[in-house]
C-alpha cells in the first residue's frame, strides 16, 4: 500500500491498488508555489553568503546521491512491489524547496530525466496484463519442436548444462517452419551451377602416384636390415678366424720362438685396429683356441692351442687388458714394430 502524501500533493497523485503509478508532471509545480508564497521554513535567501554556499553544496551533493541511487538501483526500483521511485521524487521535491540558483536547478532537471526514464519503464511493465509472455516456457517449447531428445542414462553427453540431446538438424527444422513468416526475396544464383575448370582430377592422380613408391620403399627396408645384422655377426667371427689363421701360420713358421702378444696385436698404423685385434684375440683365448703365457722376461706370449688337448693343462684365468694411445705408442717404440703382423682387411 502507498503511504498517503501530505497536503495538496495527494490530489494529483492518486493511489492505485496494485503498483506505484508513474508520477505525473503536475507534482513538480507544488514546491514552486510554496516557494513564492510562504518563505517561513526556508531562510537561506536572507542569510550570510557563506551559509548560502554551504547549503548549496549540500543540496547539490544530495541531488547527486539521488541520481546515483536511481542509476545503481535501477533493477530494484523497477520492481512494482516497492515505491522507491516515488520516495526519491518526494525527497527531490523537498530539496527543491531550497533551490535558488540555476546550478542546483540543473541537477534537479537531470534527476527528473533519469527518474522519468525509469518511470516510463515501470509504466510499460503495467501493460503486460492479459496474457504475459514467458520466455522460459517459450524456450522449452521450442526445444521440443526442434526435436530435443530428453533421454536419460547419458547415451549422449549433455550439452551446455541442459538435459537431453539436440539433434544436428534442430535449427534447420526451426528455420524451415520459420520461413513461412518471412517474405524474403529468394537469393539469386545460377540454376545450373557455375562452370569449374580442371583442378579436381590431377589431384587424385598425384595422390595415387605418391602412394605406390611408399609401399615399395617400406618393403625394401626390412630385407636390407636383415642383411646388415647378419654381416655384423659374421664379420666378427670371420675376423677371429682370420686372426687364428695368422697365429697358426706364424707358429708353424717357427714353432720354437714364442710370439710376443704385443707384437702380434699392435698395428703401428692404426690404434683402433690394434684395439680390434686385442678384442678378437680375447675371443680366441676365451674359446681355448689360443693360449697366453709369460716368457722368461715376464712378457705375455701367445700360441695356438692344439685341438684335442683337454683343458687340464692350461690354467684358466681371467684378466683384463687395457690400452691407451700413449701406451700404444710406447709399445711401438719398445718393440720396434714397423708393420702389423695381422694385416688389416682393407689392405688385402
Amino acid at each position, binding site marked *: 500500500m502507498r503511504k498517503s502524501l501530505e497536503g495538496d500533493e495527494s490530489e494529483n497523485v492518486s493511489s492505485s491498488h496494485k503498483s506505484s503509478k508513474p508520477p505525473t508532471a503536475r507534482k513538480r509545480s507544488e514546491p514552486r508555489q510554496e516557494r513564492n508564497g510562504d518563505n517561513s521554513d526556508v531562510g537561506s535567501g536572507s542569510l550570510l553568503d557563506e551559509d548560502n554556499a554551504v547549503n548549496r553544496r549540500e543540496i547539490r551533493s544530495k541531488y547527486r546521491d539521488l541520481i546515483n541511487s536511481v542509476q545503481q538501483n535501477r533493477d530494484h526500483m523497477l520492481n512494482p512491489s516497492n515505491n522507491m521511485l516515488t520516495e526519491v521524487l518526494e525527497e527531490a521535491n523537498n530539496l527543491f524547496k531550497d533551490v535558488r540558483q540555476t546550478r542546483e536547478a540543473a541537477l534537479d532537471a537531470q534527476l527528473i530525466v533519469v527518474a522519468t526514464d525509469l518511470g516510463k519503464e515501470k509504466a510499460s511493465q503495467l501493460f503486460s496484463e492479459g496474457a504475459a509472455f514467458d520466455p522460459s516456457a517459450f524456450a522449452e517449447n521450442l526445444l521440443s519442436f526442434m526435436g530435443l531428445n530428453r533421454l536419460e542414462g547419458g547415451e549422449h553427453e549433455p550439452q551446455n548444462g541442459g538435459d537431453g540431446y539436440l539433434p544436428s538438424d534442430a535449427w534447420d527444422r*526451426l528455420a524451415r517452419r*520459420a520461413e*513461412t513468416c518471412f517474405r524474403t526475396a529468394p537469393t539469386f544464383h545460377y540454376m545450373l551451377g557455375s562452370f569449374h575448370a580442371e583442378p579436381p582430377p590431377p589431384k587424385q592422380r598425384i595422390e595415387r602416384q605418391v602412394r605406390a613408391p611408399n609401399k615399395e620403399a617400406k618393403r625394401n627396408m626390412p630385407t636390407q636390415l636383415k642383411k646388415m645384422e647378419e654381416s655384423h655377426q659374421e664379420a666378427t667371427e670371420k675376423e677371429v678366424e682370420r686372426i687364428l689363421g695368422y697365429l697358426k701360420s706364424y707358429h708353424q713358421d717357427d714353432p720354437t720362438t714364442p710370439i710376443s702378444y704385443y707384437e702380434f696385436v699392435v698395428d703401428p698404423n692404426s690404434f683402433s685396429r690394434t684395439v680390434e685385434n686385442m678384442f678378437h684375440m680375447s675371443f680366441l683365448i676365451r674359446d681355448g683356441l689360443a693360449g697366453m703365457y709369460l716368457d722368461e722376461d715376464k712378457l705375455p706370449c701367445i700360441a695356438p692351442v692344439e685341438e684335442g688337448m683337454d683343458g687340464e693343462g692350461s690354467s684358466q684365468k681371467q684378466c683384463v687388458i687395457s690400452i691407451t694411445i700413449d701406451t700404444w705408442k710406447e709399445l711401438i717404440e719398445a718393440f720396434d714394430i714397423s708393420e702389423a703382423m695381422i694385416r688389416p682387411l682393407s689392405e688385402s
Partner: protein
Amino acid sequence: MSQRKRLSNTQGASQNKRRSDSLAEDDSEVPFTQPSSSQVQRGLARVSNAQVEQKAAEVVQYIMVKDQKKIPVRRADLVKHVIKDYRNIYPEIMKRVLQTFSQVFGLELVEIDTKAHVYILINKLEPHEALTTNQGSVNPKTGLLWVILSVIFMKRGAVKEGLIWNTLKKLRVDPGERHEVFGDVKKLVTDEFVRQRYLEYVRIPHTEPLECEFRWGQRAELEVSKPQILHFMGQLHEREPQSWSQQYRDAHPSLGAPGPSQPSRSQR
C-alpha cells in the same frame, strides 16, 4: 531543417542537398542529386529506348546479386557503378527497374531510408507452406532470427539485450562461446542482422553500465508477418493466438487496437 530546404530550393542550386548527400557517398565522386522531370525528358530524347532498357536490365542484375547478402543497396553505389553517364534519366531507369522486379520476378524494391536512399528487395508473394518444405537447402540463421524477432514482438516492440541472450542460452546458444552452427553468435546478431536491417541494436539512455535493447529493423517490418508469428507461437504453446490479446491487436492493426498509452479499462 525544413526552412533550410525551402531556402535552397529558391536559390536553385541545391547545395545543401549535395552536402547531405555527400555524407552517404564517396568524396571523390560528384554527389548524385535527383534530376528534375524536365531534365529527364531532355535526357530521354538523347538516348534510344534500347539503351534505356539495357541500363535498366543492368540495374536489375546488380541489385539481384547485391541482395544475396541481404545488405541494403545504396543509391550512390548504383549510380557510381551501373548508371554512370545515364544519371540524368535515373528516375526513368528506376521506374522500369521497379516494373521488371514486380512483373518478372514478383519482387518489390523498397526504399527503406529516404534520406540515405537505400533499397532492399522483398518478396511480393506470401510464402506457401507446401512450397517451402520442398526447397533444397534452408538457412539455419532464419531460425535464430525468428526467435529473436518473436521475443521482441511478444514483448511489444523493445527488449533489453539481456533477455535475448538469456533466451538464446536456454536454446544452447551462448553468445560468449563459439556455436557449431552459427559461429560467433554475438557478431551475427548485433552486426550482421543489424546491417541487413532485420534488427536494431540501440543504446538505452541513462543506463549505467551501458545497456542496449533490440527492436525490429526496417527490413523486418516489411518482410515479417506478425500474424504468422503469432500463429506459430500459438502452435508451440498450444494456445489460441487470440489469447495474447495485445499482441494479437498489434498483429492485426485493422482491428483498431488502442495504443499502449491508453489503458484499456473497458475490456477487462
